[in-house]
């Protein structure tokens, strides 16, 4: 507190995550623990998110200066005039996938989705993705049964639903493990692999920040991405996993290790890839999907906000 | 000071039987008066009409030179969070502390001032309740069986005390004790029921101010008069 008054030039920033502390926040946690933000002359408070948290709203209300939001939230906010800007794209591949039991359900091509009971969160982005998939492969709504998903997995466990949406790098690992312990085998259906590119978590800030404190934004983003690069470096994996476990004690270390490996694939698909790169064409596809499904009234020209 | 009743007609809402029909009476002087009559004849009803607690009557029921009417009855209770002594002290008007103490003594309450109201016997409750009314500002005090559960000796003391302290006020004392009202009351308004005519008869009582029992024959006559009227 005293430092604050003595060195007022250090910008105090609040950074709102999309979800609670877990592997999806590996880079942020790493940067925080290793003083990377401090080294960049920033004081950053990383706040966990949750289902009721909306980083974009907090940006506008001044409760936070940076945040993580999914692409559909960004596009929707843009369509409603929110002054939000995407500063970096953390996930190159959307971690949202569908888990299913390979001994009960066979999905070899996306066309096999027909006739299945598919779990979707109505109103959530998994519904958007699934509908885009179905449209892409010409599967009529009458050929599948969409089952409303909520936060407990009972219908999936009880076999009432064939495919259940999960974050591949988070619950995916945990559920897979549970099924394995029960002697069942789970695999994942990946929309990205099926050609639907729907952008997931990205770092957002406001237009004002970019215009008025471009240098702070640069410092923050580069510190953040430095954190991510370090966290995804296999040489640091043990340290990264230790840090994550400190913030997410409910997940056992060996599961975090697997989560980490999957996350790495999504965030840094190849070893030379620069984390944070914005995949403009994927954003445009995302916008197109949302316009097609009537989720936004008219195109927002997302390119301008990237 | 006067209570004036002219063609009073009343029945309770949504009932068909009248309690009063064209009732007339007059009480024209201050003093300790009685309201008398068999159970169910309408004493309480009349008292509540006077106190403005029932409405919708027709006819006139008016008072003159009576600005504050208080109505007390025997099943009233005091709140339970403090002793009766504290309650009595709390509701006593400025400058009436001495009077309160006098009443406490005459009413035989001094030993019970530390009790909660709920711990008193019924007669003790009656007395505590009446005492607090007597330290209020009033012109007419209606006592609806306010001493019903008190023994005769104590009741006599209390009535004489009231008559001594408040000679200029109007009291309307409701009691079922013929001898008592005959002896101590000035006017006894005997209610006789809606089917009889006249519905109310006024009888002069002995209005004694001390407990001497000299005039037994007179008393007997008044009592008979009351019994015959009712």
């Amino acid at each position, binding site marked *: 507190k005293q430092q604050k008054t003595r060195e007022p030039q250090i910008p105090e920033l609040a950074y709102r995550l999309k979800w609670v502390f877990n592997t999806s926040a590996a880079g942020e946690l790493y940067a925080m623990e290793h003083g990377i933000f401090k080294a960049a002359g920033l004081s950053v408070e990383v706040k966990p998110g949750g289902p009721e948290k909306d980083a974009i*709203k907090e940006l506008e*209300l001044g409760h936070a200066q940076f945040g993580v939001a999914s692409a559909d939230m960004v596009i*929707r906010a843009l369509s409603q005039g929110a*002054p939000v800007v995407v500063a970096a794209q953390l996930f190159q591949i959307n971690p949202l996938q569908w888990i299913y039991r390979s001994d009960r359900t066979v999905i070899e091509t996306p066309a096999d989705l027909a006739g299945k009971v598919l779990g979707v969160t109505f*109103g959530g982005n998994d519904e958007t993705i699934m509908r885009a998939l179905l449209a892409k492969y010409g599967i009529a709504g009458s050929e599948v049964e969409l089952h409303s998903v909520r936060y407990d997995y009972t219908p999936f466990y009880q076999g009432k639903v064939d495919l259940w949406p999960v974050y591949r790098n988070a619950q995916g690992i945990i559920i897979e493990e549970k099924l394995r312990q029960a002697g069942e085998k789970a695999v994942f259906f990946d929309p990205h692999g099926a050609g639907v590119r729907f952008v997931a978590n990205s770092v957002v800030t406001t237009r004002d920040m970019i215009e008025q404190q471009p240098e702070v934004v640069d410092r923050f983003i580069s510190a953040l991405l430095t954190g991510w690069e370090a966290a995804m470096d296999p040489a640091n994996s043990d340290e990264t996993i230790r840090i994550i476990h400190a913030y997410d004690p409910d997940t056992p270390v060996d599961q975090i290790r697997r989560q980490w490996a999957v996350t790495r694939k999504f965030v840094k698909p190849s070893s030379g890839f620069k984390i944070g790169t914005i995949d403009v064409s994927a954003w445009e596809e995302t916008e197109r999907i949302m316009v097609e499904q009537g989720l936004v009234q008219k195109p927002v020209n997302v390119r301008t906000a990237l | 000071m006067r209570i004036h009743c002219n063609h009073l007609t009343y029945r309770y809402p949504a*009932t068909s039987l009248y309690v009063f029909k064209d009732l007339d009476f007059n009480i024209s002087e201050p003093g300790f008066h009685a309201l008398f009559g068999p159970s169910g004849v309408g004493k309480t009803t009349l008292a509540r009409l006077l106190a403005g607690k029932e409405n919708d009557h027709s006819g006139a029921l008016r008072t003159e030179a009576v600005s504050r009417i208080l109505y007390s009855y025997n099943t009233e209770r005091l709140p339970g969070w403090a002793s009766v002594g504290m309650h009595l002290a709390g509701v006593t008007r400025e400058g009436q502390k001495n009077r309160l103490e006098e009443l406490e003594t005459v009413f035989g309450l001094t030993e019970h001032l530390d009790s909660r109201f709920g711990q008193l016997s019924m007669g003790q409750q009656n007395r505590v309740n009446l005492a607090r009314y007597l330290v209020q500002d009033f012109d007419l005090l209606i006592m609806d069986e306010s001493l019903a559960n008190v023994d005769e000796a104590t009741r006599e003391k209390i009535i004489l005390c009231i008559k001594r302290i408040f000679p200029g006020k109007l009291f309307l004392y409701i009691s079922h004790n013929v001898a008592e009202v005959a002896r101590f009351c000035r006017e006894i308004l005997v209610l006789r029921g809606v089917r009889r005519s006249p519905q109310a008869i006024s009888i002069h009582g002995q209005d004694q101010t001390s407990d001497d029992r000299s005039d037994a024959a007179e008393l007997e006559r008044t009592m008979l008069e009351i019994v015959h009227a009712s």
Partner: protein
Amino acid sequence: MLHKRLYQFLIVYLIGLSVLLGFKYGLSLSDYVIPGVPMIWKAAEGASGRYVADTLNTLGVAVVGHMISIFLATVVGILGRRRSWAGSMIRAAAYNIQAYPIVAVAPIIFILLGDGPVSRLLIAAMICYFPLLLSFMGIFSEPVKDIEHFFNATGRMNWRLQVKIRAFENMRKLTTVIVGSATMAMVGTIVAEFIAAANGIGYSIRIALYQSDLAKILVALFYIGIFTSLYLFCLEWAGFRIEKRFETPKEGRG
């Protein structure tokens, strides 16, 4: 009386809305944070039909859930009214079950009962019954000595009579609580729909929330308020009739 209820609701709603809009225009927030009037109006136009149907659907479940809650609270209140060990055991059970937040218990309910309408009803009832239970417990456990004495003394007392006496003596308190708990039934149903069901206004709210569409939520709240007021009015009217009936009994015995 119905007019009054609706007016009052509208006043409350408009005050709330004004505060929100005041914020919006005061801080010049975008439509995404707090929707502007045109957006709310558009949402109302677009969603009203569905939302009215949804709210009616919810109201139907809420009414049934309310009845169940009243029944449940009565039963538990009666069983738990005694100062004995059994009574206090039942109270303990009732309290303990309530102490578990529905969000934690819901999965267990789904496992045990499936996710059909029964679960939805049960959750609604659970949320609404506890406030009722508390009052019922208070009322049923307090003797009305002056009335009960006779029945105790002559060996006529049984639990039904005791409950009847205590309920009757506290009729006004009971109607207040029953009428008031109607809103809890509504809330309970909405929450149940929110976490579990695939229809009803709670489900619509969840979708609107996922799409961070505050405009639609405001429209939903409007209809919820309207129909809750209507239901409250009906209950109040019924309560009023019952009170009336016992205050002025008819003359003439058959």
